[in-house]
């Protein structure tokens, strides 16, 4: 950890603590707790206040539009609203936002994971008319960035080959090389759904809400279903959990997949792209931590190898 990062952590902790109770009150607070510390998001909690420092290169206008989205009364009960608008920050500094504390998904109790609740929240989000000024989602660009990060972390390493093969088998639009087909565009999307993006608020047992609007935007809602779809396809997510998620999404009128019939024509390409993205980031992480992929990471890499052998729509693999 660099000194810059730890000073960000210290400042966030002090800020959250200052706001967590009146200044005059006697203080028996526990030290601030670091919830995440990465260049793209440092999150520190004190009492019932959570302070987040966003990436240094954050587009301030886009962040303002996303905060306004989280505060939009139309999304009450779907997105966790921020406590205040972001305090101004000088050039070069990381913008800071403040949030109420929620209770996250318990990583040690997979049986209690709120798959159906997450799906209903997504369906309601996707059905909401996007506000003006919200930027487009960047699903393909994020996948491309993950692959670039992997390639830079493991130059010439054969471990990247199945992931690169899966990447090359994606259609060019899913690699961010050409514009995406416009057929399912224009929906309000979360942009980064995983189990860390759900909290109960008020803590500890309020209703589930989606958090983290840093990737929220306007785009194809199938990308929000792409991670669970990718996990299911790789064998990480049980069929009953996937069914609970998909059925709840459909029952809530989610527009990413047809109301009945096969959902995979809509999900296939985003799920493939997110499989490659997940495997690429896993290998980059393994390189940084000087370790081998764990069992689940290995499943995603194996999925990439299968993706490479079955290109989407099979159009690039014509026989005779």
């Amino acid at each position, binding site marked *: 950890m660099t000194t810059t990062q730890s000073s960000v952590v210290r400042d966030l902790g002090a800020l959250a603590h200052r706001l967590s109770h009146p200044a005059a009150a006697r203080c028996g607070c526990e030290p601030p707790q670091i919830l995440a510390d990465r260049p793209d998001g440092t999150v520190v909690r004190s009492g019932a206040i959570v302070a987040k420092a966003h990436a240094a290169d954050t587009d301030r206008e886009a962040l303002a539009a996303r905060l306004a989205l989280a505060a939009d009364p139309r999304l009450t009960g779907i997105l966790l609203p921020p406590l205040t608008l972001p305090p101004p920050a000088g050039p070069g500094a990381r913008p800071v936002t403040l949030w109420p504390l929620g209770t996250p998904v318990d990583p040690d109790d997979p049986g209690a994971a709120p798959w159906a609740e997450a799906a209903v929240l997504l369906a309601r989000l996707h059905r909401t008319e996007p506000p003006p000024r919200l930027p487009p989602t960047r699903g393909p660009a994020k996948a491309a960035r993950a692959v670039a990060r992997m390639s830079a972390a493991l130059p010439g390493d054969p471990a990247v080959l199945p992931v690169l093969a899966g990447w090359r088998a994606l259609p060019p639009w899913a690699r961010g090389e050409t514009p995406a087909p416009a057929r399912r565009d224009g929906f309000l999307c979360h942009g980064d759904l995983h189990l860390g993006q759900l909290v109960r608020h008020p803590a500890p047992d309020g209703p589930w809400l989606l958090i983290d609007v840093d990737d929220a935007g306007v785009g194809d809602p199938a990308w929000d279903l792409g991670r669970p779809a990718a996990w299911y*396809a790789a064998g990480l997510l049980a069929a009953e959990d996937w069914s609970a998620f998909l059925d709840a999404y459909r029952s809530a009128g989610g527009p990413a997949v047809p109301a009945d019939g096969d959902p995979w024509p809509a999900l296939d390409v985003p799920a493939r792209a997110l499989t490659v993205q997940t495997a690429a980031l896993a290998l980059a992480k393994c390189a940084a931590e000087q370790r081998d992929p764990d069992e689940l990471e290995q499943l995603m890499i194996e999925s990439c190898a299968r993706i490479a052998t079955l290109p989407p729509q099979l159009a690039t693999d014509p*026989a005779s």
Partner: protein
Amino acid sequence: MMQCPKCHAPMNTYNRNGVQIEQCSGCRGIFLDYGELESLTRLESQWSQQAPPAPPAPQAYPAAPPAAHAPAWGAPQHGGHGGHYGHHRQKGFGRMLFSS
């Protein structure tokens, strides 16, 4: 080139385990010639003898119940019981399901 009887988009021919299959470039429906389904079924049963639990039925018929569908590139444990996941479920999720 063949046209899809359902959505009229062009169909592409490809080879799966030695069986020629036409797939629609639009709706991704699949057309099998006489005897091809039997060939696939035979290949499938050979595969499941080699590697239990049984792999998924080829994703050939969009009319089949959708909930348990997996894509063609899905992990071979789909359709079987237990598999990797039952094991993971007891252990917890791993960090992957909680990170970007």
